[in-house]
C-alpha cells in the first residue's frame, strides 16, 4: 500500500469577518496551516504524528479524513478510511447509551441493521452493560469515552485516524485500547495516531513524524522523533552546553517491569518495581552516571533513581551498551508519573551526555489516598500517658 500525501501551501483564511460588510472584500489573512507536507505510510504501519499545539497536526488529520479540502496537492489512500477523528462525535447527552451507540455507528458508516447487530459487542467491549439505558448526561466522562472507543473499533476501515484518545480512561481501559490497536495492526489495518504522549509514540509506533508550524521537521524512528519533540518542547537537557546530547551516549528504550520481569504499565503501591533503560555508548565514558527522574502530573520530580550512591559499573568503551535496572519498593502515591532518563559522565565534574524528557510513563495504583506525594511505610505508636 502506498499513500502519498502532498499538501503544499494549504491556505486557511482565519478572517472571515465579512459579516458586517457583506459587499466589501477585505483581503483575508492567510495562515499556512500545512505547507508542503508530504509523506507515505505503508500498509499495517502504526504511524505517529507529533508536534506542538498549532503545528498543524489536527489540520493534517482533518485533511486526511476528508473534512477539510486541500488547496493544492493530493492525498491518495488505498482502502477504506475511517471518516472520523474524534471519539463519540455526535453523542447526545439527552439520549440513552443505546441510542447514542446506534447513532454514532451510523455516523461512522455502518448501516442501521449492522449497528443494531453489533450493539451487544460494543457494550461488552465498553464494559457498560449495566448502564445501557442510562442517559449519557449521567455518564462520567471516562465512561462516554469508553463508549466512543468501543463504537469506533467496530468501524470497518483499512486506515484509522486517531487524535489524542488515549489520554483518557483509566489504566485498565488504556491497556485495552492498546491491545485493540495491536489487534488492528495484526489485521493489516493502518493507524495514524496524533498524540503528545511520547511514551505512547515510542511504545507503539513503527515510525513517527514531527510537525512544526505546518512543515515536516522529521520523519523516522519513533525514538528519534520523540527526542526531537522533547528538545523542541523543553529545550536541550539543562547544562549540556558544548556537547551535543546523544553524541557520546544514546539512551534507547526505557520501561518499567515487575519482579518477574513482566512489562508494567500500572504498578500497585507497595510492589517491587524495576525501571530499566538501555544506553549505547559512542565514546568511552569512564564514570557513567545513570538517573531516571519520576515526575508526577504537576511535573514535580518526586523521586530520582540514581546510580551515584551505588558502586561505579566501571568504564564503558565506545560501541558498548549498558542495560541499567533500578529496583525499588513502590511507595509513590497514586498518580500518573512520567519518566525522564539521563546519562552523564562524572569524570571531572558531572557532564550530561543524553537525556530524554518524559519518554516513558508509569501509573501507580494505591489503596491509600493520604494526599502526600509518597506513602512511606510507617510504624505507629499511640500511647495514653
Amino acid at each position, binding site marked *: 500500500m502506498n499513500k502519498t500525501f502532498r499538501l503544499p501551501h494549504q491556505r486557511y483564511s482565519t478572517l472571515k469577518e465579512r459579516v458586517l460588510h457583506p459587499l466589501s472584500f477585505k483581503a483575508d489573512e492567510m495562515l499556512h496551516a500545512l505547507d508542503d507536507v508530504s509523506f507515505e505510510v505503508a500498509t499495517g504501519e502504526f504511524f505517529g504524528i507529533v508536534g506542538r499545539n498549532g503545528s498543524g497536526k489536527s489540520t493534517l488529520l482533518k485533511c486526511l479524513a476528508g473534512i477539510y*479540502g486541500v488547496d493544492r496537492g493530493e*492525498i491518495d489512500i488505498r482502502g477504506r478510511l475511517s*471518516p*472520523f477523528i474524534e471519539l463519540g462525535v*455526535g453523542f447526545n447527552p439527552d439520549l440513552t447509551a443505546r*441510542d447514542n451507540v446506534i447513532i454514532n455507528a451510523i455516523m461512522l458508516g455502518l448501516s442501521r441493521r449492522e449497528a443494531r447487530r453489533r450493539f451487544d459487542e460494543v457494550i461488552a467491549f465498553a464494559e457498560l452493560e449495566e448502564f445501557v439505558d442510562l442517559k449519557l448526561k449521567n455518564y462520567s466522562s471516562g465512561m462516554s469515552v469508553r463508549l466512543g472507543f468501543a463504537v469506533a473499533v467496530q468501524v470497518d476501515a483499512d486506515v484509522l485516524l486517531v487524535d489524542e484518545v488515549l489520554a483518557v480512561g483509566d489504566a485498565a481501559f488504556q491497556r485495552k485500547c492498546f491491545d485493540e490497536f495491536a489487534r488492528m495492526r495484526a489485521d493489516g489495518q493502518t493507524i495514524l495516531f496524533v498524540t503528545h504522549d511520547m511514551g505512547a509514540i515510542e511504545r507503539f509506533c513503527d515510525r513517527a513524524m514531527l510537525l512544526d508550524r505546518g512543515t515536516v521537521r522529521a520523519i523516522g524512528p519513533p525514538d528519534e522523533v520523540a527526542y526531537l519533540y522533547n528538545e523542541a518542547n523543553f529545550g536541550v537537557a539543562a547544562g549540556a552546553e558544548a556537547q551535543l546530547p546523544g553524541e557520546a551516549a544514546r539512551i534507547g528504550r526505557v520501561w518499567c517491569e515487575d519482579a518477574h520481569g513482566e512489562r508494567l504499565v500500572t504498578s500497585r503501591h507497595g510492589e517491587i518495581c524495576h525501571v530499566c533503560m538501555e544506553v549505547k555508548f559512542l565514546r568511552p565514558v569512564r564514570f557513567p552516571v545513570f538517573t531516571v527522574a519520576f515526575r508526577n502530573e504537576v511535573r514535580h520530580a518526586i523521586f530520582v533513581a540514581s546510580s551515584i550512591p551505588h558502586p561505579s559499573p566501571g568504564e564503558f568503551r565506545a560501541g558498548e551498551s549498558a542495560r541499567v535496572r533500578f529496583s525499588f519498593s513502590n511507595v509513590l502515591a497514586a498518580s500518573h508519573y512520567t519518566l525522564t532518563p539521563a546519562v552523564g559522565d562524572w569524570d571531572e565534574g558531572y557532564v550530561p551526555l543524553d537525556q530524554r524528557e518524559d519518554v516513558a510513563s508509569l501509573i501507580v495504583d494505591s489503596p491509600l489516598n493520604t494526599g502526600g506525594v509518597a506513602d512511606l511505610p510507617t510504624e505507629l505508636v499511640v500511647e495514653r500517658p
Partner: protein
Amino acid sequence: MSVQPAVARYRGPSAVGDDLRRFLNLTWMLAVTDFKLRFFGSALGYVWTLMRPLLLFGVLYFVFTEVVRIGGDIPHYPVILLSAIVMFTFFSETTSRGVTSLIERENLLRKVRFPRLVIPLSVSLHALFNLGLNLIVVFVFVLATGVEPRVSWLEVVPLLLLLVLFATSVAMLVAALYVRYRDMQPIWEVALQILFYASPIIYVISFLPDNIERPAMANPIATIVTQWRHAVIDSGAPSAAEAIGGGVRLLIPLAVVFGTFALGLWVFAREAPRIAEDL
C-alpha cells in the same frame, strides 16, 4: 490481504458524496433523533408542535372574523386559515431552522466526513414529520366542518411534494449562505414575515386587486395554498390556474420552485468543501 483495494483520492467533503445509502441513513437518523428529542424531551412534546400553529390560528381567526371581519364571508374560512398556517409553518420551520442548521451541527461537520447536504435535508425531514402530524389535525377539522372527501383530495400529494421541494431548496440556499454571511439570519426572518403577508394565508387570493392578484400567484406558496383550497376544501373557490389566469401560466411558480432548487443545490455544492473551515 489478497485483494488490493483501489486507490481513492480524497479531495475533501462534498454536498452529496458517492455513497447514497449512507447519505439516506444519515439524513433519516438525524431527523428521527431530532424529532425524538423534541417529542419525548419535554412532557408535552407533541402538544407543543401542535400548539404553535393552533395558537396562531386561534389568534388570527379571532382577529379576522371578529375584529377586521374579512374572513366572515369566506365559506369554510377556519379550515382554509388552518391549513394555510400549517403549510406555512412547515415552510418557515424548514427554512429558519435551515439557516442555522450547519452552525448547530458544527461539532459533526468538523469531526466527521459525511455529505454536507445531509444537514439541511434532515432539518427538512424533521419539519415534514411535524407537518404530517399537523395535517392529521387539519383533516380532522376539515371533516368536522362538513367537507366531504373527494377524489381531488389526491392533489394533496403533488401539492405537498412541491411545498417540500420549495422549502428544502430555500433551506439549502440560506444554510450555505449563512456560513459565509451571518446576517442571513435576520434577513431571513424579515423575508419570512414579508412572505407570510404576501401569501394568501389570512386572506384568500381573490381579495387582492386584479393587477396584483396574478403577479402574487408567481409565489409558489400562493399557488399551493390556493390550489389546496380549491381541491380540498371548497371546489367553488378559484383554482390556482384560474387565479393566475390560465394553466400555462402555472409554469411560472413551477419555474420559481425548480429555479430555487437549482440555485440552492449549486450554491450548496459550491460551498460544501469549505463549510467545515468557515464555520
